[in-house]
């Protein structure tokens, strides 16, 4: 492993942070696409120099950018995200029915073995795929046309498909998460989908344990143990041991179980990270202290990680796509904040240091471990 490349999406452009294996000295380049919101930048596992970026704003809509040289140069590729057939309608916040309307791409996931194949999770919630490197995009309409879809309603950020979690060993199996519908699962490559929310309970819903309607914020799992899936829900940190069929709460001793992001250590499937946030009203950490919490037991028992993180007067948030891990040894953990800081812990969470302090609001952080 020669080093790492951290891909940072912000409210005013993208940044690329690179370092060698020590991860203590960083080169920062950017902003790319300055002035535009960049919800996500993703690299191809099959070709680390192939990157994709979701660039958007309220004036000019959605752009997809592609780089073939690790982020030095970029070209706009296809941005036609047209829903298949009659897009139908879903619920609005007030319970009224509104038409499905494409707004932006929240999340990009490049195939592990084909740099030209990418999945895109979008708002209003749907899943699209390209097989030609982003030139053209086609919807996998079975998700959006699920029988429950007319009852889906947006979370505060919109009706967004923000998490795509393919099964590492079974290309036909995949979980996605939608705010606020919950988790849906496919076992046939995306043709048909089933809700996978048994065990979730959301007090804001008229039926707190309904099959759909849950505001799931993020999912994560370790590739060596794919049936174990971790979830940060609006409130509650959850775990499934059967690939999402059922869930149980693992919030344990967390100071608050509200939060946005969750991730798993690259080499230890039982080591999980969350960033507790005070509440859905207060989108900042408890007591003005930014603490990442780590469980080494797959949940329930959590320890605060504070060394190098601000422990007073800190009121930033860490959004759902703004935590990532690298595959170095020891595993590096990264978080980006709404205050524009990107922190790294090069030792699995024991010690933290800022890579940059003053970027725009960080929307997403991805890490490539370079060969």
């Amino acid at each position: 492993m020669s080093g790492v490349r951290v891909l940072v999406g912000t409210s005013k452009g993208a940044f690329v942070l690179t370092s060698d294996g020590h991860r203590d000295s960083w080169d920062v380049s950017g902003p790319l696409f300055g002035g535009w919101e960049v919800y996500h930048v993703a690299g191809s596992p099959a070709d680390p120099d192939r990157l994709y970026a979701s660039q958007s704003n309220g004036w000019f809509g959605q752009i997809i950018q592609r780089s073939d040289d690790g982020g030095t140069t970029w070209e706009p590729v296809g941005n036609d995200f047209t829903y298949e057939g009659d897009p139908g309608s879903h619920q609005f916040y007030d319970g009224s029915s509104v038409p499905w309307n494409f707004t932006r791409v929240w999340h990009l996931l490049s195939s592990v073995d084909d740099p030209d194949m990418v999945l895109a999770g979008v708002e209003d919630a749907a899943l699209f795929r390209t097989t030609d490197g982003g030139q053209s995009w086609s919807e996998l309409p079975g998700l959006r046309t699920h029988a429950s879809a007319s009852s889906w309603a947006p979370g505060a950020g919109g009706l967004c498909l923000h998490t795509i979690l393919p099964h590492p060993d079974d290309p036909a199996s995949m979980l996605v998460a939608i705010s606020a519908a919950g988790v849906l699962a496919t076992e046939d490559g995306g043709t048909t989908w089933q809700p996978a929310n048994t065990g979730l309970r959301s007090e804001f819903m008229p039926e707190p344990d309904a099959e759909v309607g849950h505001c799931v914020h993020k999912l994560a799992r370790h590739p060596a143990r794919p049936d174990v899936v971790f979830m940060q829900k609006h409130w509650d940190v959850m775990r499934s041991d059967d690939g999402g069929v059922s869930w149980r709460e693992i919030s344990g001793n967390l100071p608050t179980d509200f939060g946005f992001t969750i991730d798993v250590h690259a080499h230890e499937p039982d080591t999980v990270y969350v960033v507790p946030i005070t509440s859905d009203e207060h989108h900042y950490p408890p007591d003005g202290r930014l603490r990442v919490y780590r469980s080494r037991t797959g949940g329930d028992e959590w320890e605060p990680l504070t060394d190098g993180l601000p422990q007073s007067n800190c009121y930033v948030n860490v959004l759902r796509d703004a935590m990532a891990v690298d595959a170095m040894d020891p595993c590096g953990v990264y978080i980006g904040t709404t205050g524009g800081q990107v922190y790294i812990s090069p030792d699995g969470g024991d010690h933290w240091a800022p890579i940059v302090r003053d970027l725009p609001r960080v929307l997403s952080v991805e890490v490539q471990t370079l060969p």
Partner: protein
Amino acid sequence: MSAPVPIRIVVPQQLRTLADVSGEVVVAVAAPVTVAAVIDALEVAHPALAGTIRDRDTGRRRAMIRVYADGEDYSDTWTDAELPDAVTDGREPLRLVGAIAGG
């Protein structure tokens, strides 16, 4: 049908960056020269701009884009109104303007 005439277009800075152009953009448009016909030609010349000025599905102007020609507002007359002589004879550009929003 008359020969295409060159139409000057002032494009918002963010779209100039996206299309990798500087200054005004010039496209050739045959009569009748409407806003829609100019945007058609602009998107052919600069495919990166497709979907950024008008919705791909409906063809409707994106909500925060306005269009002016020789001081007149053509934002809602994309297909009906032919552009004025000042634009078709090259004295004035067609101006695509992003709304001021957000301070």
